[in-house]
């Protein structure tokens, strides 16, 4: 009789064990939060994109510093920006950028100096109109429409007998945006400078990264 009970209880042990395992499975299921794991992974991937974005920004600035001169800094940076766009497009990442670069030769007190302006539209769409206003004499240059991937250039003349901070106001519109940027141009007697304003953006399925920055370099 005792043996029979033992055999019965051995069989029932399977059912009891199954219940225990089922409870453990429920506890495991509740402890695994797939949403949190997915968020963590997304966070890591976004971090990776941020690292690549910062790498691009650093190298664009680096391209301006290599053999700095009015011509080299501008040519190198614009070539680098085109290179970055090609690299991103081959990886199916949408990269857009607008740069406006300014340079002037060594300023001599009281002598007319030319402020050269060069830029490139890599916004992925045409600029319908662009105006640049120079605070020196409030003069404005209208650059009209600028096709996507096109370069543009213009200039202003100024004369000063002391160090000044002038402001260039760049206003532009595309089919999707209207934007106005104010860029400070430090003018120092006896110095030649290169100033670059860059507005860059990447769009991926995870996030949009955008950065606007102005870099100033002494050329002499």
């Amino acid at each position, binding site marked *: 009789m005792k043996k029979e009970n033992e055999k019965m209880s*051995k069989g029932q042990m399977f059912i009891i064990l199954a219940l225990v395992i089922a409870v453990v499975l429920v506890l495991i299921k509740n402890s695994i939060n797939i949403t949190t794991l997915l968020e963590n992974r997304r966070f890591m991937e976004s971090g990776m994109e941020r690292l690549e974005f910062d*790498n691009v920004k650093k190298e664009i600035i680096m391209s301006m510093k290599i053999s700095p001169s009015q011509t080299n800094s501008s040519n190198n940076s614009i070539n680098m920006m085109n290179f970055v766009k090609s690299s991103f497009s081959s990886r199916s990442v949408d990269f857009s950028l607008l740069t406006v670069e300014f340079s002037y030769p060594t300023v001599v007190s009281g002598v007319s100096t030319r402020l050269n302006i060069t830029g490139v539209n890599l916004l992925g769409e045409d600029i319908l109109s662009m105006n640049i206003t120079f605070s020196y004499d409030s003069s404005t240059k209208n650059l009209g429409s600028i096709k996507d991937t096109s370069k543009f250039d213009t200039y202003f003349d100024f004369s000063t007998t002391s160090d000044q901070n002038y402001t260039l106001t760049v206003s532009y519109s595309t089919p999707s945006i209207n934007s106005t940027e104010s860029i400070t141009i430090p003018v120092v007697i006896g110095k030649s400078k290169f100033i670059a304003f860059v507005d860059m953006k990447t769009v991926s399925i995870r996030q949009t990264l955008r950065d606007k920055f102005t870099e100033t370099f002494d050329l002499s």
Partner: protein
Amino acid sequence: MICQKKKMIIGSKRIFGCKGILQILEAAIAIIAILTVFLFLFSGMGEFPQFESVNWKLKGFYALQSLDNNNELRNFVISNDTTSIKNELLSYVTQVNIEVVVCETVCNKPDVESEKLVSVNYLIAGNSTQYAARQVVIYMW
């Protein structure tokens, strides 16, 4: 009563009696119950996210960044010395196969058959004296 309380002996073999059959039945019920609970709980969870590929990418990128900070990367890249880059990277990126490609705009993918192949791109503009825009691509699998 179908089940009788005695052992059945056929020839020299003893086969299960009633209690043996009950035990098998209970074990089967237990297994079915566990499987049902498992499927009910975990079948709708979707694919479990993989962290391996993104970890490799981060490791690869930081390794390139370290090489760059040590002023080693740029000259290797400009001289198209992928072997030196690979050798240096192997001290940072372990337990994974790597292949390094230096290219301009068009980068050829190495002939690697792996479902786990991931790549990291690192751009350089040149070194302090020479403009030479290149991209370094590390493939890991």
